[in-house]
């Protein structure tokens, strides 16, 4: 029986505990920072550094094992399931924020404006408030603001992400056809598109803060807008980093038509980020 016939069970690893240490220092640092202790940030940096170190080492181990041929078909399936369900958990995380957006738009704001059983709330507490969207609430928290029009940069960003979905698929075909140069080029193009998206997004944020007075503190509109687009942006950033990693791996010739799970995992993730953006574009910007 060769090793590949057996399900590969690694024997001991210190990476998880490094990861735990990293996460713990990160959150302890942040919590102290939030509580007004500036030194907390340094602890948080240590945490982030440890997590990066862990990812480097852990994935390094796995790449090594994969190249050594320790992973059977069955191991590959485990990884695929792992990635699929991880993405599902991410979908549910975003669902919480989309849910908040729907709830406030469909229920909370109209009730504050006096709809249904909210008539007395409106009359007694927020007399004169009319339900509208966008809104920063009856107290106008954060002051007057303007929103970012959908059909400008956000639309451009939509096109950019959709195109990046295409380029990564072309890269995938190149993997299957064993065309290494094409693979690297299409991946590099995807990275470039991701980076461009992020650049535009950062630019929009700057404009929102400096010119539109649209901030995280702009009532419920600012809250949902920045939390949704912000978490999405964070995921694009992560996705871009992952893309950069696999671009280098592609350049080293790591991916074969039979064995390129890492590539596919990143591609799935990238498509997920793409789909979330479509949801954002429709529900946050257009509607």
């Amino acid at each position, binding site marked *: 029986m060769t090793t590949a016939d057996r399900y590969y069970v690694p024997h001991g690893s210190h990476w998880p505990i490094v990861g735990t240490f990293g996460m713990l220092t990160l959150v302890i640092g942040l919590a102290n920072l939030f509580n007004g202790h500036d030194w907390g940030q340094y602890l948080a940096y240590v945490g982030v550094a440890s997590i990066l170190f862990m990812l480097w080492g852990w994935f390094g181990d796995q790449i090594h094992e994969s190249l050594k041929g320790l992973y059977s078909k069955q191991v590959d399936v485990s990884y695929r399931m792992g990635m699929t369900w991880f993405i599902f958990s991410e979908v549910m995380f*975003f669902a919480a924020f989309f849910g908040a957006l729907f709830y406030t738009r469909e229920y*909370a704001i109209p009730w504050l404006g006096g709809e*249904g059983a909210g008539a007395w709330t409106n009359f007694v507490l927020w007399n004169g408030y009319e339900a509208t969207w966008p809104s920063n609430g009856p107290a106008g928290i954060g002051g007057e603001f303007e929103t970012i029009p959908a059909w400008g940069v956000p639309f451009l960003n939509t096109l950019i992400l959709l195109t990046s979905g295409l380029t990564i698929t072309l890269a995938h075909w190149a993997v299957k056809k064993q065309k290494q140069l094409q693979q690297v080029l299409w991946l590099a193009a995807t990275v470039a598109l991701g980076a461009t998206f992020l650049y535009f997004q950062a630019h929009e944020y700057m404009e929102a803060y400096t010119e539109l007075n649209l901030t995280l503190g702009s009532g419920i509109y600012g809250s949902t807008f920045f939390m949704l687009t912000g978490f999405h942006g964070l995921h694009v950033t992560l996705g871009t980093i992952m893309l950069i990693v696999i671009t280098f791996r592609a350049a080293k010739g790591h991916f074969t038509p039979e064995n390129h799970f890492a590539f596919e995992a990143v591609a799935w993730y990238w498509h997920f980020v793409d789909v979330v953006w479509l949801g954002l574009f429709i529900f946050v910007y257009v509607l």
Partner: protein
Amino acid sequence: MSSVAHAEGHDHKPEGFLNRWLFTTNHKDIGTLYLVFSLTMFIIGGAMAMVIRAELFMPGMQLVDPAFFNQMTTMHALIMVFGAVMPAFVGLANWMIPMMIGAPDMALPRMNNWSFWILPFAFTMLLSTLFMDGGAPAAGWTLYPPLVLQGGNSFAFAIFAVHLLGISSIMGAINIIATILNLRAPGMNLLNMPLFVWTWLITAFLLIAVMPVLAGGVTMLLTDKFFGTSFFNAAGGGDPVMYQHIFWFFGHPEVYIMILPAFGVVSEILPTFSRKPLFGYTSMVYASASIAFLSFIVWSHHMFTVGMPLGGELFFMYATMVIAVPTGVKIFNWVATMWKGAMTFETPMLFAIGFVIMFTIGGFSGLMLAIAPADFQYHDTYFVVAHFHYVLVTGAVFAIMAGVYYWLPKWTGHMYDERLGKIHFWWSTIAVNVLFFPQHFLGLAGMPRRIPDYSLQFAEFNMISSIGGFAFGLAQIFFVYIVWKTVKGGQPAEARAWEGAKGLEWTVPSPAPHHTFETPPEIKPDMIAHPSNAH
């Protein structure tokens, strides 16, 4: 002891304490870690419950100030839910699922280690808030705003602890799904799986679906407090009630996360000691799946009194009642399994039967609470406390204990002391009913929950309840002693520790060697746990 395995030379336990436990990728060792951790948390959370019952022993303020009392109720719940019950089931899953389906280990062994080791650190952080300015979180385990936002320094730590626990649960759940779907030995098709495996598969799905939602909700709390967002602030267009929706969208599936694996454990034990196959295996699977589905559409039964539109009240009332149907299917199946069986009453069986009876009591009080107009009266009273302690203590915790007694011989290679086990069961069962049954009366008479003092008419029942509480607490110290004694020694257990036990886990030696099924076993019909369904 492990000499059998040694003799065969297959026992590659890593050398050294750190290697063995800190860096482990072995499902059995990780299972043990989970179980030991859970027991530790059970004792710590139990100690907090003792503080609560001591304060409530008599009317008036006796021992602790109200702020500390609130910290105790909050921390007790967080610790019991996330530290005791959930990790105990994950520990059972780790130990048993690979052995039940003929897998060499969990599908993702390194991640398995990570899921576990997050927990002790996260809980150390959470517990450390007891010593901070303003003390531990005190707004209840549900962390409702605006109250929770008024907490002291502990707030951010509590939120981050919840994040970490969520990450741990999600990774654990992903691992369990991948193991069950991908690592079954050939011939162990889905409908040959033990019910414990099935219920865990469904539980894992629930976990991945709702833990991220909780993470999102508490993140909104965090940004509301520190970054000026208005999610739960009506002045800014948000709504504090929205938090309750988000929380209970997680919270209700969460209670099923704590009970579905318990259903699984009980469904393994009852057939063994009734010496009859499980009645209605397939219907059990479907019932579990329906419960899981329904658990997503009933959450607002926790919010009948917050001021929902009438349509909402009605929808959530009826949807909640519908859950009684699949739950009833299960209860009838368990009873039918025992019906005309050649029953014996070893400790696991006693706990399993205790589970069936007392969980049903909790289910009935749940149905009473599900009647929206009645809940207007019961909500936030001790009736609710009685309800969820019946389903969680005599339900989930009793099932865990049943499972521990049932599989302890497989883990340690020793039989526990049957006489002590029986004493533990009867002592716990009497005490727990003295503890929680009077709380129904207190609640119906209007005693509010989460209050350190009460008016005089509640005095007798509270005193009785507290006495039951102390007795129950003591019984669990006794449980720790029984487990310890079994680990240290005792009558050697056979591979098939119980004569009526079916299933793959009973074909490996006791104690189970460090590695089992490195190559997939061949599944023969007599290795299937619930063979009436073998096609």
